[in-house]
C-alpha cells in the first residue's frame, strides 16, 4: 500500500488527479475502522493531515469557511459561538481521543446517515466546497450527500471546506443512543432559528438513507410563529404546536429497522427530540431578548 503525504493543497490535488484511486485520510477514525474490518483495501492512501490549507478556518461576510481537516476539538474550542449547533453536536462525538482526531471533512466524506455533524450543517444551510486539480465547485449539503455513504465527490476531487453561515439565532442538537458516549446515534435532530429572516430550519440524522430536512415541519412552525406574531413578541409556543412540529418531523424521517433501533422507535424519538430542541431553542431566544 502506498502512502502519499502531500504538504500543500496543490500537491494534494495533483496527487489525487494522478492517482484517483487514492483514498483520502484525515483523522482516520472512520477509515482505519474500515481497513481493520477489511471492508476496503485501497492501494494508496492520501494523508491530508499535513495540508495547511485544509486545517484552518476563516470568517468572511457572515460565513465561516471551515477547512475539511479541522477537528471536532478545535471546532469546539475556537468557533462554538459562531456555529453553536455544530459545536453541540461536536461535543457529543465519540470520546476526547476521537474528537482530537476526527474532522468535519471526514464526517462529510463518510456520509454516514448517522454522522453527527451532518444534521446541524444541514440546519445551518452549509455549502460543501470541493476542489480538483482543474478547479473548484460548491454545492449545498443536500446535493452533496446522495445516499447512505455516497456523495457526489468525483474521483479526482477532495473536500476542501464547508461554508457555514454564522448563526443569527439559537441552534440546538440532540441525539439518542444506547449509551452515553461512543455510540452510533439511534436518532438525532438539529434545529436552527433564524429570527432575522423569520425562518426555521432542521436536520434529521440516523433516520433515513441520508440526513434529511423536515420541510413540512419547518413551514408549519414558521406559519405558527408568523401568525401569532411570536417572532416579535417572543411569547411562548403552545404545547400543541410543539407537538405537531414533532409529529411532522417524525413524518419526514425515513428510518429503517436495525440492531440499534426500530422504525417505530426512531420516528417516535425524533418527535420527542424535535419538540425538546424547539423548547430549548425558543427558550434561548426568549432569554436572549430579555
Amino acid at each position, binding site marked *: 500500500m502506498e502512502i502519499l503525504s502531500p504538504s500543500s493543497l496543490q500537491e494534494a490535488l495533483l496527487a489525487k488527479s494522478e492517482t484517483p484511486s487514492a483514498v483520502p485520510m484525515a483523522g482516520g477514525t472512520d477509515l482505519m475502522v474500515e481497513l481493520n*474490518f477489511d471492508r476496503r483495501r485501497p492501494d494508496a492512501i492520501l494523508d491530508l493531515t499535513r495540508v495547511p490549507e485544509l486545517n484552518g478556518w476563516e470568517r468572511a461576510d457572515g460565513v465561516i469557511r471551515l477547512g475539511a481537516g479541522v477537528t471536532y476539538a478545535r471546532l469546539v474550542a475556537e468557533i462554538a459561538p459562531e456555529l453553536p449547533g455544530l459545536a453541540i453536536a461536536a461535543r457529543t462525538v465519540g*470520546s476526547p481521543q476521537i474528537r482530537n482526531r476526527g474532522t468535519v471533512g471526514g464526517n462529510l466524506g463518510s456520509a454516514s446517515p448517522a454522522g453527527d455533524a451532518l444534521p446541524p450543517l444541514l440546519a445551518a444551510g452549509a455549502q460543501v466546497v470541493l476542489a480538483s486539480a482543474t478547479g473548484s465547485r460548491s454545492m449545498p449539503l443536500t446535493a452533496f450527500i446522495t445516499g447512505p455513504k455516497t456523495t457526489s465527490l468525483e474521483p479526482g476531487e477532495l473536500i476542501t471546506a464547508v461554508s457555514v453561515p454564522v448563526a443569527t439565532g439559537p441552534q440546538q442538537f440532540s441525539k439518542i443512543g*444506547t*449509551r*452515553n458516549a461512543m*455510540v452510533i446515534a439511534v436518532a438525532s435532530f438539529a434545529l436552527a432559528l433564524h429570527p432575522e429572516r423569520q425562518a426555521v430550519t432542521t436536520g434529521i440524522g440516523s433516520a433515513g438513507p441520508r440526513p434529511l430536512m423536515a420541510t413540512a415541519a419547518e413551514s408549519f412552525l414558521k406559519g405558527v410563529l408568523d401568525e401569532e406574531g411570536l417572532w416579535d413578541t417572543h411569547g411562548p409556543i403552545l404545547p400543541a404546536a410543539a407537538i405537531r412540529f414533532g409529529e411532522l418531523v417524525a413524518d419526514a424521517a425515513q428510518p429503517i429497522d436495525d*440492531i440499534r433501533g426500530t422504525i417505530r422507535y426512531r420516528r417516535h424519538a425524533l418527535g*420527542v427530540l424535535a419538540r425538546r430542541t424547539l423548547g430549548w431553542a425558543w427558550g434561548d431566544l426568549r432569554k436572549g431578548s430579555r
Partner: protein
Amino acid sequence: MTGAAKYTEDVSVEGALHAVFVRSFMAHARIGDIDFGSAVGMPGVVGVFGAGDLDLGPENSDEVPDVFARPMLANETVRFVGEPIAVVVADTLAEAMDAAALVLVDYDPLPVVVDPEEALARGAPLLFPEHGSNVAVERNFTSRAPREREPEVVVTGRFLNQRLSAVPMETNGALAVPDPDTGGLKMWIPCQAPHWMSREISKALGLEEKQVHVVAPAVGGGFGAKIATYPEQIVVAAIAHRLGRPVRYLEARSESMVAMTQGRGQVQHVRLGATKEGMITDLEVTNIADQGAYPGEGSSLSTLTRQMASGVYRIPYIHYRTFCVATNTTPTFAYRGAGRPEAAALIERAMDMLAQELLMDPVELRRKNFIPKEAFPYKTASRARYDIGDYEATLDKALEMAGYEKLRKQQQERRAAGDVKQLGIGLSCYVELTGFGTDSSTVEVHEDGSVSATTGTSPHGQGHETAWAQLVSARLNIPHERVQIVHSDTRLTAKGDGTMGSRSLQIGGSAVHGASVGVLEKAKLLASHLFEVSVEDIVQHDDGRFGIAGVPDSVVGWGELASAASDPARLPEGMDPGLSAKDKFGYDDNTMSYPFGAHIAVAEVDTETGQVKLLRHIAVDDCGRILNPMLVEGQVHGGVAQGVAQALFEEVVYDEDGNPLNANLASYDMPTAAELINFETAHTETPSPLNPLGAKGIGESGTIGSTPAVQNAVIDAVNHLGVRHIDMPLKPERVWRAIRRTAG
C-alpha cells in the same frame, strides 16, 4: 501504572511460528471439501492443519452425554460462527493471516437455531441429531420438605438473563515452546488456572502433566472467560509438539468476540407464591440455560442458579426444572458470578413483582421474609447451606446511606406532578456462594532473611501479591517488601485451582496463612534448640527477631535461623531441613461461604424516550473479615460496573441465521466512564466460621448485587404506569415500549 508488566504476547521466543485459525462464518453447516491448496505454498507457511491432521480427540465433559463432545477443529459439522476449522502456521503473523484467507471451505448449510426456547421446541433443527434433541441435560429438583401451604397471591414472569461477552482487555492466546529436557512443552497462556491448563493440555496430547509446564504471565483480565482450556490452545500446543518448534497465537478482538466463551444466557420462567400478608410460600422455576454450540462444563452453572434461587429468604418449598440446551452460538461458560447473578436477578425481580402485587413496600416484603440472623447455619429448600449472615444489617445500612424515605417522597412528588422524568429506587438483597476447591502453599524463609510463599491461586489484577504478602508479614513479622509471592507457574507451585469463583483469599489465602503459622512454629522450635531452652521461653521481639523471655541479649534473626535450618548439624532431631512449612486448605461442597449484601440503585427514567440515567448506586457488601480494604474496594467497583452494564447496556445478539450482530467493540456496548457514576460503598463484617481468616469471597459480589438493583430501579420508576417487568438490557427503546404497551 508503569507499562512494565509482561503479557503472553510480550514473551519473546526466537523463531516462534504464528498460528492463525480459519473459522467458520456459518452458524450451522456440514463441511465438505477443505481446500488448503494455495495456502500451503504461500511464502513463510510451515503447515496447514485440519481436523484429521493432529490426532487430537474431542473434549468431553462429565456434565453432558458424550455426543456433545467438542472436536478441537471442526470435522464434519460446524455449529457456530467462529468455530475453528483449520489452522495455518507461518513464520510471521502477516504470512499466516494471508494464507489463512486462502483456505477454502465448502459449506453445506444446515437449519439454524439461535433462541434457546426455540431449540426446545419439537421440530427444532438439531445440533446433534444422534442425541435426538437439543437438551443436553434436564434436571428436576423438588425441595425435600413438601409444600406447607397454598399461596394466596401468585406472581409469574418470564425473565431473560441475557447472554454477555466477557471482553477482557487481553484476548485469548498461547505460546508453546518444546522443552527438550522433558520431551514436553513450556507454555505461556493468559489464563486463570495454570494447573488446570497443564492437566487438560497434557491429557489431550497424551503427555504427563509435569511435561506441560504452564506459566500465566501478566494476564489482562479473565472474568471467567479464561478458565476453559480452549481448543485453540490445545491445537497450538499439539503443533509445537509435533513440529518441535515454538508456536504462538493471539486472537484479534473480532475473533475473540466469537471464540471466547460467553456468559449468562438463561430464560427463567418464574412463579412466586405468598400469603396475603406477604409470607413466601413457594417458588417454581423453569430455567432454560443456553449452552451454545457445545454444551459441556458450562452446563454445571445452572445448578448454581438453582442452589441460590432461594436468595436471602425463607422459602419453604421450591420446585426447579432446568434444561441445558444447545444452540448455534458461541459456547457459554463462566462469566463473573457464573450462575449466581442469574439466581439473584431471578428472585430479586420476583420479589419486586410480588411487592407490587401486594401493594407493599419492597423493603417491608424483604424484611418479612429474611432468614433471621439467629438461624445460621441455614439450609435452604434449594439445598444450599449458608454459613452465616445478617441480612437486616446490610439492608439497614444501605437504606440509611440511600436516605430511602426521602427518595420515596421525591418519587411520590414526581409521580404526582406527572413529570416526564420519573424516579425509581431499586433494591437487591443478595447472597452468593464462594470458595470451592483446594489450594496449597509453601512458605520458606531464606538465609538473607527474606521469605517466599507459593500459592495455587493465579492473580490477574486481584492483588494477591499484596494481600498474601500482608498475611505472611503479619504472621512472621517480616516486612512485606521482603515477602515474595510465587504464583501462576506450575513448576514453582503445588497444584491449586487458580483464581475464579471468588475463592482465592478464603482458600489460597488460608493455605498461605496456615503455612506461615507452620513456619513460625518451626522457627520457635529451632530457636529453642539453638538457645537450649524450652520453646515456651522463646519470644518474638518487635523487630522480628527471636529471643528468650527475660534475656534481652540472646537474639536470633530470621536469616540466621534459615542458615541454621539448612545445616543438619544444627537441627533438632526429627526436624526437616529448611525453614519452610506447607499447608493445604480446602472446602467440600457443604462448607462453601456465602457472602451477602444489599444494593440500592436510584435511576431516572425519561418516560418519553425510555432513556435511563443511573443517579446513584449504593453497595453494602459483607465479605466477612476484610484483609485489605483497598483491594476489596477495587473488586466492588469493577463488579458493580459490570453488573450495571448487564442491566443497562450489554447483550450479545445474533440474527436468525446465527450471525453475531455485535461481535466487535463498535457495536457491543461495553460500559465506559461516561456511563458510570461514583458508587457509594460500605461493608459490614460477619466473619465466616469456615476458615481461619474469617474471609468470604468479594470478587463477584458487586456484579451479583448490582444488576437486579438497577433493573428494579428502572422498573420501579415506571411501575405506577402499569409496567410490571422489562427485560435487560434496559436500552431506551425497550423501556419506551414497555411504557407504551401499558400506558397506551
